[in-house]
């Protein structure tokens, strides 16, 4: 059974080709979070709906799309464009009758959600993600509007509208120094709000965000944060699914593609075409979506070409693409040789390697430690306990890092 015949590609799918297309319909955002990695979020430029269709047409014609394509409308704030914009794009794509399925996703700050948006979400079965960091005291510390006011109250209005209209959604919370101090408050906020799928992004050094409140925090605090999440999750009988734990469980179990097939983790961020990110003007990058807006002393930027203008084959055979691809492959090779977690990770996140360590050829990052290693440690210990596997003697007590390592560079 292929992943394609059964539905959307599963976690760690071995299917080749473009699986995730991240489109930036506009770089504009209606708010001004102080940890945002996008530099051009004041720009009101936009991609035309017909151009979005043309992009998928070009990928299809080049034969690089598998049996399923996830399209994530990621801006800026995607809802700053009207619902009619997306209706036009979705209708245009549906009319093409591609031999692959397309699933649309939005990641939104929820402030502009109203009934008209809910109609669109329901009509097109949109996968909605809301960015909310927790209770107001934590959220408003960083997620502010351009007048410097907190946005929490307006986000909650959007969330209540989604809930009133029974639109399913998940939440993504950026973990900042404030969240690390109050992990239980963060969890309880989501539990009380009735959010049952949750992902955590540790505040990162990426793109325009060149400082992180978390990087100066005690390294144990991130571990304690996730341990607290695991305890809270068990206490409430798993009413909330946490993405990092789900990913860790799936990677530990090695279940992928079909039941009974055990595979090590395949990491889409390190595959040459699994993830494409296209800016409003057709500029395209591959690997980590965060590279779309970033500048680099080594590469100038990470734009590989213009998908509306350049032949796809040309984009993916350019010297720049090869240079980046080779560097990422070398980084993965080093990870495979040096990191115990390689079989559950597959080589980390190239953008984090570049922004934190200064090179794609480097290995461990804060992202690795916080999003891969800590959840793996916690879920591995849980699996050993719950599945009756004798817990190895001499393991460090849960809660202690294996060791504090300095940032590595290539």
């Amino acid at each position, binding site marked *: 059974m292929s992943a394609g015949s*059964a*539905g*959307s590609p*599963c*976690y760690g*799918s071995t299917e080749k080709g473009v699986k*995730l297309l991240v489109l930036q319909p506009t770089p504009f955002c209606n708010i001004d979070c102080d940890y*945002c*990695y996008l530099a051009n979020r004041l720009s009101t430029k936009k991609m035309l709906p017909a151009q979005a269709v043309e992009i998928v047409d070009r990928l299809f014609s080049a034969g690089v799309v598998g049996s399923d394509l*996830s399209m994530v409308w*990621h801006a800026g704030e995607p809802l700053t464009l009207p619902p009619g914009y997306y209706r036009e794009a979705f209708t245009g794509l549906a009319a093409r009758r591609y031999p692959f399925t397309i*699933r649309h996703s939005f*990641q939104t700050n929820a402030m502009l959600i109203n009934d008209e948006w809910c109609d669109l979400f329901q009509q097109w079965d949109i*996968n909605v*993600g809301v*960015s909310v960091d927790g209770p107001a005291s934590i959220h408003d510390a960083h997620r502010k509007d351009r007048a410097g006011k907190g946005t929490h109250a307006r986000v909650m209005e959007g969330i209540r509208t989604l809930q009133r209209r029974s639109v399913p959604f*998940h939440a993504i919370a950026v973990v900042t120094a404030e969240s690390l101090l109050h992990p239980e408050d963060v969890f309880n906020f989501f539990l009380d709000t009735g959010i049952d*799928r949750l*992902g955590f*992004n540790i505040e*990162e050094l*990426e*793109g325009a965000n060149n400082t992180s409140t978390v990087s100066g925090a005690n390294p144990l605090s991130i571990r304690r944060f996730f341990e607290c999440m695991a305890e809270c999750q068990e206490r409430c009988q798993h009413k909330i*699914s946490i*993405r990092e734990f*789900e*990913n860790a*469980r*799936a990677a*530990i179990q090695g*279940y992928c*593609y*079909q*039941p*009974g097939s*055990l595979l090590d983790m395949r990491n*889409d*961020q390190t595959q040459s075409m699994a*993830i494409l990110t296209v800016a409003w003007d057709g500029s395209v990058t591959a690997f*980590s*979506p*965060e590279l779309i807006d970033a500048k680099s002393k080594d590469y100038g930027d990470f734009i590989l070409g213009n998908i509306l203008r350049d032949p796809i084959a040309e984009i993916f055979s350019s010297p720049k693409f090869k240079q980046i691809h080779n560097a990422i492959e070398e980084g993965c090779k080093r990870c495979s040789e040096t990191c*115990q*977690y390689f*079989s*559950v990770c597959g080589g980390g*996140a190239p*953008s*984090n390697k570049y922004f934190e360590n200064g090179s794609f050829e480097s290995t461990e990052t804060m992202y690795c430690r916080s*999003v891969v290693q800590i959840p*793996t440690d916690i879920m*591995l210990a849980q*699996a050993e306990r*719950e*599945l*009756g*596997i004798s817990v*190895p*003697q*001499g393991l460090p007590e849960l809660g202690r890092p294996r060791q504090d390592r300095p940032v590595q560079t290539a």
Partner: protein
Amino acid sequence: MARLLSLYERIRNWFLVLIGLLIGVQAGVQPTNASTSKPVPAIPERVAAVRSRMQEIQKNPALVEQKNAKGETTLVAQWLNWGNWNNWRNWGNWSSWNNWGNWGNY
């Protein structure tokens, strides 16, 4: 000559004491059961153990269907459920586009 011999004996004795102390200190820092304790398994070995246990469980329907006294799904069954990729499909696209796993600081 006698003085030299005496000095030699003193040096030798001190040397022997020093060697004895070093051996004693060395023994003191070694755990008494050092020869019997196992090294800590690496992550890949622990992952392999979980995968192997999951396969065992899959082959044993009785374990999968087991409920506890309150009629709740057991943890073993729960893990199997988590490991079932069809269950992953219930996450819809979410798990798939989050395979990227990292929305940056969006």
